[in-house]
């Protein structure tokens, strides 16, 4: 299980499905599951960072101005950030198309 995304045959499966390439899970884009996306209204944001702490994907990062935004490759649309944000700065909106 080195370079390919997954082994072609059962014979190629590493014992115990071990993965010897650190960080390879970042190649799995959980964002493809998303039905809703978080949208930030920075006028309401107090930069407390709770959304960043609570995001189960760890995909929220602080930008240069100290506001927060999600990496849409990994955001799976769970809505936890919107639920935890106490100022109501995050709204979940339906993905279109």
């Amino acid at each position, binding site marked *: 299980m080195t370079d390919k995304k997954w082994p072609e045959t*059962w014979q190629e499966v590493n*014992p115990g499905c*071990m993965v010897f390439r*650190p*960080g390879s899970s970042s190649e799995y884009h959980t964002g493809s599951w998303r039905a809703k996306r978080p949208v930030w209204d920075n006028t309401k944001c107090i930069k407390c960072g709770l959304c960043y702490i609570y995001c189960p994907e760890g995909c929220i990062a602080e930008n240069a101005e100290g506001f927060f935004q999600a990496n849409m490759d990994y955001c799976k649309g769970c809505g936890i950030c919107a639920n935890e944000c106490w100022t109501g700065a995050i709204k979940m909106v339906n993905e279109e198309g």
Partner: protein
Amino acid sequence: MGKLVGMEVALAAAEAAALCRFEVAAVYPITPQSHVAEHLSDIVNDGRVDASFITVEGEHSALSAVIGASATGARVITATSSQGLLYMGEVMPIASGMRLPIVMIVANRAVSSPINIWNDHSDIMPMRDTGWITIFAENGQDAVDMVIQAYKIAENRDVMLPVIVTMDGFQLTHVVEPINIPDQEEVDRFLPPYNPYATLHPDRPISMGTLGMPEIFPEAQKAKDVALVNSIRVIKEVWDEWERLFGRKYEAVETYRTDDADVALLTMGSMGETAEVAVDELRRQDVKAGLVKIKLWRPFPFEDLKKALKGIRVLAVTDRAVSFGGPGGPVFSEVRSALYDEDVRPKIANFIIGLGGRDVQVGDFVTMVKRAAEGKLAEPYEFYGVRG
């Protein structure tokens, strides 16, 4: 070679693990395994092995702890019984799926309810499909030898699977038997230090216990099955080496007086010795009886069983567990299925015996053989000796 000592079997099994220089033990005490837990803890406390004993809050944690320790490259031991084994059930297939060479001593005990602390095989049988190599000890010497052999089997690079050594609770664990305990030097020669295939270490990150998407999961399951099926070759090699070094022979299926036998009993675990006495008694009564003992339960020894049953006309399979609402006891199902494609195969009767510690005596086995030979069985399987 070794030293013959009179020792309680549970303690002797723990001594065998110590001879293997285990490095981590995580055990939660439960009757009738508790003496194994206590003795492992004594061994660590007395500094007789360079090991940690993790006092966990339950069996799920016990197995989880040794999974983690094994993944870092430690040689590990755990042990349990009954409800404890069922409680471990959730992590059992993870240990085998991660291909970790964990060794576990199981002191077989009935599962509730009603609550019963005595021996049968209703704890081990539900673990049949969890991917562990499973070996049944018949006596104290088996228990000691099999624990040492288990590490050699489990750690073989062609195997890399966890191993259960089962011994009947009380009937084995709590009896004092004369047992040859091998010398440390002999065990060191037989069992080199564990050289893991891969380990978890912060400096060399790898992933174990990964997610398997539908695109890979069936291939992973087949790879695990093939590893388990093929492990029988290594198991036999280890047993051959054991016989050369220690002079004691082990076989996946053992037979007793089956050469010219017409009717045979089939047992697993400690009742084999009582059944041998019954076979001798039947021979005195001119019944051509023999005995077949399955020592290796997983991987199932299909070819060895077929060879052992050559010429047997009637086979009385004993089960010490119930497959409720199923075709008969679990051993019976397996044996009957193993013989399905054979042109010549014995008639098979199934007696469910010894549940929850119910005594099974020589005369009971004699009766079972005679009843099976006469073909007088009311049901596809019979709860032998049950009142009503």
